[in-house]
């Protein structure tokens, strides 16, 4: 479970999030809000990329301020632009990066790499240069690079924003099939219609925290 207790976040004098207290335990959680509402900052708090100015964020009891390494081993993060997330020049090498950081041995790295490539039908791309992949393939590689680290939670910050409809649907199918708890920041309301919980963030505050049936109309009304 991810727990936020009285969390506020500021960048210098600029407050971004105000006194948020939440427990995240559902399997599919969406975070929606207008541009600049603070939803990406909220997502970054969950794996310690951003640290609260006040309050605490903990993941399975590990404090993001004090136990960042343990937190990052549990919470994977997928960014909007896969080009900024893929670190190594070749697909196989990039998949290995996170696992090497976890200290896994070569045999485990090779097994997990093969498994993930087979799962997403990317075996033929194993030795492919990352910069020559299509947008959809890059995002799939970015997600795979996180999944091979076997996190319990996956936070995704608008992972389909830069994709065409076909790739959006492909990524949505991939996300729906994951066993992990998903915390998905998105503008795509269709994708989250069957989620367990939707959190609407407005001007740095939780404006609504409910099922999609209640939260999506609330958000649409807010944006009207």
């Amino acid at each position: 479970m991810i727990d936020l207790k009285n969390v506020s976040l500021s960048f210098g004098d600029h407050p971004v999030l105000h006194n948020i207290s939440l427990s995240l335990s559902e399997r599919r959680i969406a975070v929606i809000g207008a541009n600049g509402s603070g939803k990406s900052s909220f997502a970054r708090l969950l794996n310690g990329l951003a640290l609260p100015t006040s309050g605490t964020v903990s993941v399975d009891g590990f404090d993001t301020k004090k136990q960042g390494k343990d937190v990052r081993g549990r919470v994977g993060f997928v960014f909007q632009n896969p080009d900024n997330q893929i670190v190594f020049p070749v697909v196989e090498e990039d998949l290995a990066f996170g696992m090497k950081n976890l200290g896994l041995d070569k045999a485990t790295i090779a097994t997990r790499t093969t498994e993930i490539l087979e799962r997403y039908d990317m075996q033929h791309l194993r030795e492919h240069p990352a910069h020559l992949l299509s947008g959809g393939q890059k995002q799939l590689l970015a997600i795979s690079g996180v999944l091979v680290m076997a996190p319990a939670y996956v936070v995704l910050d608008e992972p389909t924003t830069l994709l065409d409809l076909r790739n959006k649907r492909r990524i949505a199918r991939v996300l729906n099939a994951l066993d992990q708890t998903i915390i998905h920041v998105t503008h795509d309301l269709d994708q989250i219609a069957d989620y367990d919980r939707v959190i609407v963030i407005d001007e740095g505050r939780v404006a609504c925290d409910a099922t999609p049936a209640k939260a999506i109309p609330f958000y649409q009304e807010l944006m009207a």
Partner: protein
Amino acid sequence: MLDLYTPGTSMLHRMSPGPKMAALAIAATALFLQESLLVTALAVVAILALYRVANIPMKTALAQIRPLMWIFVIFFAVQWYFSGLTLAAYVVLRLAALILLASLVTLTTRASDMIDSMTRALRLFKPIGVNPDKVSLAISLALRFIPVLGRIATEVREAQKTRGLERSIIAVAMPLAIRAIKMADDVSDAIESRGYRS
């Protein structure tokens, strides 16, 4: 080295990167130490033969030197003018031999294997404060992001072209620098989020 690695099972592919890089260093030094046109020409032929051994097509070999063709032409012309035809041919052939040889190493070696070898070699310098892991990550990032930066530069140039500013260095350099800095921030976050600790 960006996307050069060509998968294969040849002897050169199977060789570990350390000896290959050592051989490259020795051969490059030897090429500089000798001044015979004939030996240099034979070296080029021998290197092209190694491409055959690695099952890499000649067209791929030639593609390695094609981007530098203008530099070859300029070098050749300047050397011919100042030092004569033989020296001009020697200088250009030597440069071509070096590029072909270095490319052969990268064509037959995965970047990660090469970086692992460098990391191992750099461990010798740990006592004087060198951090091998940081150096190897920096090399990987450079290899990964050169094409990305190239693409961003093209996007910026095209955007400025539509405004008639393609000849303005500032109009191209400023947005490119800003995007590169923003990207560096994002990449740093991505590396951190994947468990890297310096």
